[in-house]
């Protein structure tokens, strides 16, 4: 026993180091799965208010760009208004809520903190539990998808950016509906990869990529990007597709969080199948 105590006291620095290192690995292991990642809950309160101050300052310099993009979006929405359509045909007008039930709700939010150059990037938004935000809600910008809500605190939420190793989004090619999963390879924030598209599917450059209807996070048909280049290696069963993303991740300031009002219903019925 005395020898043991002597041994420990002689190498106490090493033991302290070892204990701290182990604790850090426990933290990493426990919070690595992004669905369980609530680490940020403990820290968001303090750090986010810091980032809010920073982003308030930065937003001021960004106003011109924000104005431009809002103007663009306004123009696009105006063109979709019923008043800008010429009615060509008489159709019986249906006003019945049982036919069109709202499934998705959009909550505007602004970006408090963002990064694009790390391997795993996260975005902080200024909406939280008070505004009804929950983990696993989708986030889009006016031009395309941005990411998935990862953890929520009282006033803030962190978003797993599409530019993250843990982010995998179900996507499809608009032209023929072929499915694949969208991942980021960590090299350039303007491009991502579409995996698992079978080689018999005909594809071409500039084909549009949109979100698929397989996920409960994003509505179908949200634009993601366009095929930038594609190749098929000999002996490979899947296309290698490089996608140019619509969203300019270095420059997002206002986004929308998507709430799927029927998500619980879908999840419930899917869980009964598994059991």
């Amino acid at each position, binding site marked *: 026993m005395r020898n043991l105590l002597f041994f420990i006291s002689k190498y*106490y*620095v*090493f033991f*302290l*180091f070892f204990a*701290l*290192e182990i*604790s*850090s*690995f*426990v*933290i*990493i292991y*426990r*919070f*690595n799965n992004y669905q369980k*990642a609530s*680490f*940020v809950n403990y*820290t*968001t309160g*303090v*750090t986010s208010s*810091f980032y809010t101050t*920073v982003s308030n300052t930065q937003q001021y310099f960004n106003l011109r760009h924000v104005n431009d993009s809002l103007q663009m979006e306004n123009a696009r929405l105006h063109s979709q208004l019923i008043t800008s359509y010429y009615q060509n045909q008489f159709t019986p007008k249906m006003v019945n809520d049982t036919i069109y039930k709202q499934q998705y709700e959009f909550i505007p939010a602004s970006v408090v903190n963002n*990064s*694009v*150059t*790390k*391997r*795993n990037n*996260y975005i*902080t938004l200024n909406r939280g539990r008070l505004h009804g935000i929950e983990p696993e809600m989708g986030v889009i910008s006016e031009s395309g998808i941005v990411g998935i809500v990862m953890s929520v605190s009282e006033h803030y939420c*962190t978003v797993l950016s599409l530019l993250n*190793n843990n982010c995998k989004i179900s996507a499809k090619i608009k032209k023929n509906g072929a499915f694949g999963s969208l991942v980021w*390879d*960590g*090299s*350039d*924030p303007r491009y991502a990869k579409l995996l698992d598209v079978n080689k018999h599917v005909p594809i071409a450059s500039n084909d549009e990529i949109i979100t698929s209807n397989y996920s409960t996070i994003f509505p179908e048909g949200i634009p993601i990007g366009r095929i930038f280049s594609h190749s098929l290696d000999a002996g490979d069963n899947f296309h290698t597709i490089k996608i140019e993303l619509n969203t300019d991740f*270095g420059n997002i300031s206002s986004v929308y969080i998507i709430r799927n009002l029927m998500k619980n219903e879908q999840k419930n019925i899917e869980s009964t199948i598994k059991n």
Partner: protein
Amino acid sequence: MILEIFTYLLRFALILLIQLLVVNNIELSSYVNPYIYISFILLLPVTVKPWHVVAISFLVGAVMDAFSSTPGLHIAAANFMGFIRIHYLKATTTKEDIEGRISPTLSQKGVVWFVFYCLMMTLIHHTILFFLEIYGFQEFFATLTRIVMSSLVTVMLILLGQLVFFRSKQKNG
């Protein structure tokens, strides 16, 4: 003593602000993510007790983790680097260094020694950090490139910081 602690806290706050507001916004490429906050650990005086260095590294990593929404990555990397630093300094400092209570800085130890010291520590830190970030050995060579490029930029920024902030001491000494 209290004044000294206060000075170091102030220095840490300054380094952290530079890291978060300036260095984190350098968007050269996704292969360059310099982390200069480790210079706080690197520049602690040689006389600081070993277990203090380990504890300080842990805390510095925890603060950095909180600000970058990464669970435990910076703790693991900074803590390991702090531990290696103890042994590296034990092997490379002289009796006069310890008696003079110096900090291992550019002006005190010379360019070659300092650059090599920074490079070794930064490589250790970045290796652990970036491999834990990807959490596996997929994209091995991309991660390796990221480590080397980021380390070089980190060392350059630390050297730059030495030239800017520690110049006055060099004149006196």
